C-alpha cells in the first residue's frame, strides 16, 4: 500500500451525497453522545475520575461481549457491566488513591473477561472489533431511541443535582457541613457516569471512550474557568468531534474512532496553546496591577 492508497483509504468522498442520508441516525446519535459527554465530562474532570472512566469502560466491554456471546442485547450488556463497575467504584473508593488502585486491579480482569467472551463468540468478526474500537455506521431506529432515551434520563438527573454536585466536587467537606448529601451524590454520579460510558462505547468503543468523556472537558478547562462557559465549550468540542468524525469516516472503510479521537485531540492541542497564552497574559496583567498574590502556578503544567 503506497501513500496515495493510504490517503484515499482515509479520506474518500465518492458518492457522498448518496451516503449521507444513510447515516442520519448515526449523526443524531453522535450529537446526543457529544452533548452527554460534554456535560458529564466537566464533572469527571472536577472529580478526578479520568482513570475511573477507563476502568468502567473495560467492564462495560466485558458486559457487552458477554451479551454478544449469549445473543442478548449488546447495549443492555454494556449498561449492566458499566453500571455495576461504577457502583463498585462509587461505594468502595472514596479517596482518589484507594479508588485508583481498585480500578487498576479490576480493569485488566474486565478486559480479560471480555477477550474470553469474544474468543468464544463465533459470529461476525466486525461485531467483536466494534466493541473495542467503535461502530456507528448502522444505528437503527430502535437503537437510536434507546440511546436518546437513556441520554435524556441522564441529563435530567444531572440537571437536578447540578448545583450540589458542583459544591460537593469543589469542596466536599464544606458541602457536607452545609447538609449536602455528599456520599449519596457521589454514588448517584457514578451511576450516571456508568450509563454515559456504556452509551459512548456504542460509538467510539471501549478503548477510546476517554476521547468523548475526558478530552473535550479537559480542552475547555484550558481556556476558561467560568463554569457555564466550560460546559458550553466542552459540549461543542464533544459534538464537533463525534459528528465531524462520522462525516469524515463516511466514505472510507476505516472505523469512525480514529477520526473522532484525532479531531478531539486537535481541539485539545489548540486549547492548550490558547491556554498557555492566556496564562502568560494573566501573569503580566497581575504584575502590572501589583498583586504578587495572584499566582499563576501550574497553569501550563
Amino acid at each position: 500500500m503506497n501513500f496515495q492508497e493510504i490517503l484515499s483509504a482515509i479520506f474518500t468522498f465518492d458518492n457522498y451525497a448518496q451516503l449521507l442520508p444513510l447515516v442520519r441516525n448515526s449523526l443524531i446519535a453522535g450529537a446526543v453522545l457529544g452533548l452527554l459527554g460534554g456535560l458529564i465530562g466537566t464533572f469527571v474532570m472536577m472529580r478526578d475520575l479520568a482513570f475511573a472512566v477507563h476502568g468502567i469502560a473495560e467492564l462495560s466491554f466485558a458486559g457487552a461481549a458477554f451479551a454478544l456471546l449469549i445473543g442478548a442485547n449488546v447495549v443492555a450488556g454494556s449498561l449492566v457491566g458499566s453500571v455495576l463497575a461504577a457502583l463498585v467504584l462509587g461505594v468502595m473508593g472514596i479517596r482518589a488513591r484507594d479508588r485508583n488502585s481498585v480500578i487498576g486491579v479490576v480493569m485488566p480482569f474486565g478486559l480479560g473477561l471480555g477477550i474470553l467472551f469474544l474468543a468464544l463468540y463465533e459470529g461476525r468478526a466486525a461485531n467483536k472489533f466494534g466493541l473495542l474500537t467503535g461502530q456507528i455506521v448502522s444505528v437503527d431506529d430502535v437503537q437510536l431511541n434507546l440511546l436518546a432515551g437513556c441520554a435524556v434520563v441522564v441529563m435530567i438527573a444531572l440537571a437536578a443535582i447540578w448545583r450540589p454536585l458542583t459544591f460537593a466536587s469543589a469542596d466536599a467537606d464544606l458541602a457536607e457541613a452545609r447538609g449536602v448529601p455528599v456520599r449519596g451524590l457521589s454514588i448517584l454520579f457514578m451511576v450516571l457516569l456508568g450509563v454515559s460510558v456504556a452509551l459512548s462505547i456504542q460509538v467510539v468503543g471501549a478503548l477510546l471512550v476517554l476521547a468523548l468523556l475526558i478530552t473535550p472537558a479537559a480542552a475547555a478547562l484550558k481556556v476558561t474557568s467560568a463554569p457555564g462557559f466550560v460546559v458550553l465549550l466542552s459540549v461543542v468540542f464533544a459534538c464537533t468531534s463525534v459528528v465531524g468524525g462520522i462525516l469524515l469516516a463516511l466514505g472510507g472503510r476505516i472505523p469512525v474512532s480514529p477520526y473522532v479521537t484525532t479531531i478531539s485531540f486537535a481541539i485539545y492541542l489548540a486549547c492548550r496553546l490558547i491556554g498557555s497564552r492566556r496564562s502568560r497574559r494573566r501573569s503580566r496583567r497581575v504584575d502590572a496591577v501589583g498583586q504578587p498574590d495572584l499566582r499563576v502556578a501550574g497553569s501550563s503544567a
Partner: protein
Amino acid sequence: MTSTLPRQVPYPQEGRGQPAISLRGAALSFGKRTLWKGLDLDIMPGEFFAVLGPNGSGKTSFLKVLLGLQALDSGTARVDGRPIARGSRTLGYIPQQKSFPPETPLRARDLVGLGVDGHRWGLRMRSRAYNERVDGLLRDVGAESYADAPVGLLSGGEQQRLRAAQALATDPTVLLCDEPLLSLDLHHQQAVSSLINRQCHEKNSAVVFVTHEINPVIEYVDRVLYLADGEFRVGTPEDVMTSEVLSDLYRSPVEVLHSNGRIVVVGLPDDTTHHHESA
C-alpha cells in the same frame, strides 16, 4: 480531675440572652480513648472562643459535633437553643486551608456563590439578588480585585478569604473555624483573623476557633477551651495559659512564657512545642 480551676468559668458578660452554643455533660471517645467527657459549656453570641490542644486531642471532633457530623457519646449539644441539625443555616464553617486544583472550573465569585445556594437542587437561575449577594460578600472580605479570577490560580490566603465569604453567606449566628490560618503567610493570617473577629465582635456571631496556635488571634480571644489527654480546661487566656494549669493538664512540667503580648509554651510532651513558637 485535680483541677485548680473550676471547669466552667462564668462568662464575664452574662445576661446577654440565650447562649449560641450550649453543651451539657458532653462526652466523646474513639474506641477506648476518651477525647473529653463531662464537658459543660455555654458560648455566648459575640464571644470569640478558641479551642486549643495538641494533635489528636479532639479539637476537630469538637467542631464536627457542632456541625452535626459526629454524634456525642453522651450529653447534649444545642446551637441557638435547638438540637443540632446538619446543614443548619445558623452555622457558618471555615474549613482548613486546602488548595483547589489549578483547573477547577470556578471563578472566585462562583465559589462564593456555592456558599449562598450551593446546597439547593437543580440549576441556578441567575437573579439580581444572587449577584448582589455575591458582590456584597466579595466586598466584605476584600476579594473584589480577584472576583473573576479562577480559584485554582489564587494563593492560599486569597482562597481562604473566599472560604470566609462562603461561610458568611448565610449570616450565621455561629461561625466555626477549623485552623483557618494554617499555611497562610503573616499578612493573610492577620487579614483572615480580623475578618473573623469583625463577624464576632461587630455582628455578634459566636466564633469557635480551632487552632494549635493562639498567638495570631490572641488579641481577639475571649475564652479558651484547652484539650489534652482526655482532660480539658475552660477560661480566659490569662487563666488557662499558665505554667500551672498546663502542667496540670499535661501531667508534666510545662512552662508558659509571655513576651510582647505573645504566649510561648515550652516543654510540651510529644514534640508540639514548635507550633507554639512560630507566629
